[in-house]
Structures are given as C-alpha cells and as structure tokens.
C-alpha cells in the first residue's frame, strides 16, 4: 500500500532523513520508535506532503501512485490521514463543521461519531481552541473517523493524555484500524477481521498504545535512518532496558540486527 524507496528529506539545509526504505501493506500496523530528533515526525510530515519538508531524493508511492511531490490534499483524498500532535487552533471554525468537511462527499453521522469519542459537547466549539491534550487526540480521531483513510499516520497518540483518556483513545485507534468487531449474524468475526483494510504508521515513545493494538511490525528511527526491525513489544522491552544505545552500535554495523 505504502512504498518508500531511498527517501532523503531536508528541512532547510539540514538533511534529516537519510535514505529511508519502508513498506507497509494494506491493513498492517507499523510502529515507529526512536529518540527525539531522530526523524520520526519528519517522516510523517513528509508523507503528508507539508511544505517545509523537501524531498531531495527517493520516492513515495501510495496505492500504486507516485505521490512524492503531490499536494497534501491529493494525498488526503487518496486515503492518507494524519493525527497531529500539536494541531493549530482555527478560530471561528466549528469542530462539527470540520468533521463534516473531512468526510468530503460521503454521508456521515457527525453526532454519532462524536458520541463514540466523547466529543458531543465539542462540536460547537472552535477547532482545538483551548482543548486539553486528551481532547486534541479525541478531536483528531473524530476527524479521522469521518475521513475514513486507508492509512493512518499517528504522531504519539499518548502524548499529553491522562490514563482515563488513554483507554478511550487506545480503543478508538484500534477500532479505526480494525473496524468495529462485533458478533454479526452471517459473518464470523474472523471473516470480518480478514477484511480490515486500514493500515497504520504510529509513532510512540512510551509504548502505552501497544496495550491496545495488534501491532504487526516495528522499527527504530535513529539519526535519520531506520534500523532494528522487530516485533514492536520486543523493541519496547529492549529500549526500556538498554535505551537506544544499542541502535547506535547496530547502525554502525550497517543497520543489520
């Protein structure tokens, strides 16, 4: 679904991503670990096509289309959705109105979606105006649910979120990726599951989100390179014990684990 080939990205004069190769298949959840400043957010921003991130080399294809230089809205319409870590406040724009716009032409029950993430009271409020950390995440999820992307880019779902919100957010992210899994007549849950189509690329520092997700693969981003592919829980355990120092050693051996 998403293919990244030898991607080099600069912010200003500084090269931040130095040759990224990554494939994420349909329905797959990929976890990105790594210390601050390693290039994780840069990768997400580049995938979304924001203006400060210049691709100097390499290629991004999504659903078979080369989107390396496509404008942001085209990527969104093709099915890439992003949850922002620090989204801007937009004064005078109601959250409910934005949610409706996220759905593009699709019919959408904004009230129902809002109720699922406990955002009913926020629909009439200006987008992100005075929202707490948890409220921002729920608002981002609400917009993504309306948008219905095929690939979700999620920058630190747990940042600034209290424990109570974490549970709701974790479960909602899972639903967004898996679809609603409920016993239905005429279709086993296994069949439903096999039809899930939403992929995820998720940045996490703490790994709290892993308690709620079935993450398939994970990798560490360090100094603009991807390394150490493993099962996400194993990476987390390793990092908790040894920090990212091991990645440095590993990278100096050519990135092979």
């Amino acid at each position, binding site marked *: 679904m998403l293919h990244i080939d030898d991607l080099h990205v600069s912010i200003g004069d500084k090269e931040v991503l130095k040759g990224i190769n990554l494939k994420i298949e349909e329905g797959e959840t990929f976890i990105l670990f790594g210390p601050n400043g390693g290039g994780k957010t840069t990768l997400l921003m580049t995938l979304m096509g924001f203006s400060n991130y210049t691709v100097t080399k390499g290629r991004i294809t999504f659903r078979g289309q080369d989107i390396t230089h496509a404008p942001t*809205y085209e990527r*969104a*319409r093709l099915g890439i959705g992003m949850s922002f870590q620090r989204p*801007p406040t*937009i004064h*005078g724009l109601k959250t409910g109105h934005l949610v409706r716009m996220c759905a593009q032409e699709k019919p959408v029950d904004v009230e129902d979606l809002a109720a699922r993430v406990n955002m009913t009271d926020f629909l009439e409020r200006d987008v992100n105006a005075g929202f707490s950390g948890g409220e921002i995440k729920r608002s981002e999820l609400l917009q993504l649910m309306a948008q219905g992307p095929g690939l979700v880019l999620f920058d630190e779902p747990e940042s600034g979120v209290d424990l109570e919100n974490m549970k709701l957010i974790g479960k909602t992210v899972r639903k967004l990726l898996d679809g609603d899994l409920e016993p239905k007549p005429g279709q086993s849950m296994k069949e439903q599951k096999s039809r899930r189509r939403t992929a995820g690329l998720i940045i996490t520092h703490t790994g709290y989100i892993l308690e709620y997700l079935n993450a398939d693969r994970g990798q560490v981003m360090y100094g603009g390179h991807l390394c150490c592919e493993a099962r996400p829980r194993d990476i987390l355990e390793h990092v908790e014990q040894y920090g990212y120092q091991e990645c440095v050693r590993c990278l100096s051996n050519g990135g092979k684990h």
Partner: protein
Amino acid sequence: MAREVDLSQYSFAGADAPALTDLRTLDSADKRRLLMAGVDVEESHRSGSFLHMDHGNAHCRSNHPGVEILDIKDALKKYDLSDYYWKLIDKDKDAYTKAAAENLHGGYFVRVKAGAKIEEPLQSCLFIKGEKVGQSVHNIVIVEEGAELHMITGCAVSRETQHGAHLGISEFYVKKDAKLTFTMIHNWGESVDVRPRSAGWVEEGGVYQNNYVLMKPVKDLQMYPTITLAGRGARARFNSVIVAPKGSYINSGSRVIMDAPDTRAEIIARTITTGGVIIAPGHIQANAVPARGHLECKGLILGKGVIHAIPELEGTLEGVELSHEAAVGKIAQEEIEYLMARGLDEEQATSTIVRGFLNVDIMGLPQALKDVIEETIAESEKDMF
C-alpha cells in the same frame, strides 16, 4: 492619515426623489444592492421600516405599537427635541457636521416606549440613486427605560450611481435598563465618500451593542462613533467586520468613554485587506471604578494592502482594568496545511479560515440578524479572492 473629502463636488439640493414607499418596486439590480446591505425588501419579519432615498421624503412604517418611527423633519415639528438633537455631537466639529447641519434631507427618529421589548428588528434603509448626490441625514434613536430594540440599518447606492457622498449624524439614547443593538451594513461604491458621525449615551444598567459590517468597496470612509457609559452598570460593545478591496480607504474606529462605576466595554474588530487601506483605531477611556474594558483588533493582509491598528487604552483612576490584543498578519501556513491534510484544497482551506476569521458568532446576535450578516459575507466572499 485623516483624508479630507471635497464636498463641493456633490450636490446637496435638488434630488428630491419621491418617497420610496415599497422596496419591491425597485428594479432587481437595486434590490440586490440593498440585500447586500442587509435590507429585507419584502419587509417580512420586521417590526418597522424606514426608507429614505437621495434627498427625498422618507417612508416610515411601524408594525409594532411600542415603536414610533418618523422622518426627523416631522419629529422636529411634532416634538421638542432640544434634549436630543445635536446634543451628543458638535455641529462645528468638522466640515461634514457643518454640511450636515446646513443640509438636512431627512433621517430617522425612532423611539421605543418604556418597557417595550421589540422582538423583530426594525429596518432602516438609506439609499442613494442619483449621480453626484450628496445625502445628509440626521438620525435619533431613543430607547426608553427598560425597552429593547434591534435595529438594522442598511446603506447602499444604486448600481447606476457612480459618485456620491453620504453624511450621517446619529445620536443614540439608551435609557435606564434599556438595550439597543444597532447593526449597520454598508454597501457603497468605488466612488462614494462616506462620513458618518455617531455618538451614544447609555444610562444606568443600559446596554448598547454596535455591529458594523463592510464587505464592499467604498472610496473613502471615515468614522469614529463614541459611546459614553454614563450610568452605573452600563455596557457597550462594538463588533466590526471590515473588508477592504483595492481602492478602498477605510478609517473606522470605535470609542467608549466609561464615566460610571461597574461599567464594561468591549471593542472587537476583524479586518481584512485584499488591496485597500484600513486604519483601525480603538479607544477605551475609563474615568470611574470598577470599570473593565477590552479591545481586540485582528487584521489579515491577503496579498496586498495596508492595515494600521491603533489600540488606545486610557485609565484615569487607580483600579481600572483595561486590556488590548492586536495582531496584523497573514493566514498561518500551518492552518492551511492542517485543513489540506483533511482533503481541502488550498482555496477551500483559505476560504474556510477566512470565514472563521470573519465569524459573526462573537456578535451574539439573534438568529435572523445573524443570517443576514452571514449571507452578506458569503455573497461578498465570492469577490474577495
């Protein structure tokens, strides 16, 4: 900064249009011009109407026993208005007040009876149809004790009118515990000079709210309405939404003088230039305590143009609480990209943000008034980019 208008190029006599008794008789182009000034030509859902064209006689109609509407000339004959006429504004203040005093073509006299709470807005329409007409009106609004009124006043020129000048003296009297919401929507033209001169007096517990919307071109407009909060607990609020296309020169400010304790004042201006010049002064003066005032002026420069915000706070006693917030800038790229990440293209994202910027929810208007303003903004937005 203060530009002068040469009034001698306009004719202040002779354009004695017949009384405009029914707006529906206007041609469709003129109807449209009025609609864009917030005027409901069907006059439905209005508690009354006042229509005045060029130098002609006015058409006045009240649909509510609590509201009296007269042409100011008739009101001056009928009543002794010495407590109200030229009381808040000095005739000799400037060339425009002098010209207005010398050439009285009309204007409205509106009085709401004590205790009458008028639900539906009263509409006034001042219209210039003749070429090179100088129109000069004097308006007086009196809201008696405990009464409430919403007034929409739409000012427009006909599509045929190339050049014109409008001088308007307005005096507002809000008595004890009364409330006046005064909404003014302007739809002038590229060669029209405009000099309103307005002042208001608010007594104990009274509320004056002024909403001003200017989305269409004007050659040169300058005004600085001043409200005095004279009684304890009086409040004033000014909301302005101003867009200046290329060629417009707009100097539009608001001033509140707080002369009594427990008063509150708010001045909120949203300005956009797409090539024109906007001077946006604001002044809150507090001469009593406790008094709280806040001034907020935000401007967006889209492409070209000038926005000059001049917020002034003046406290003359210990204990006043005055604050201001002013910003002139452009639309944040971050906001555009945020919306583009949701699938909006750049133009949709920009117009969504501009719509939000001009959002009139802050005015706290009744729905009918809000609809009128939102329609005007939506219509005008088409010409904005």
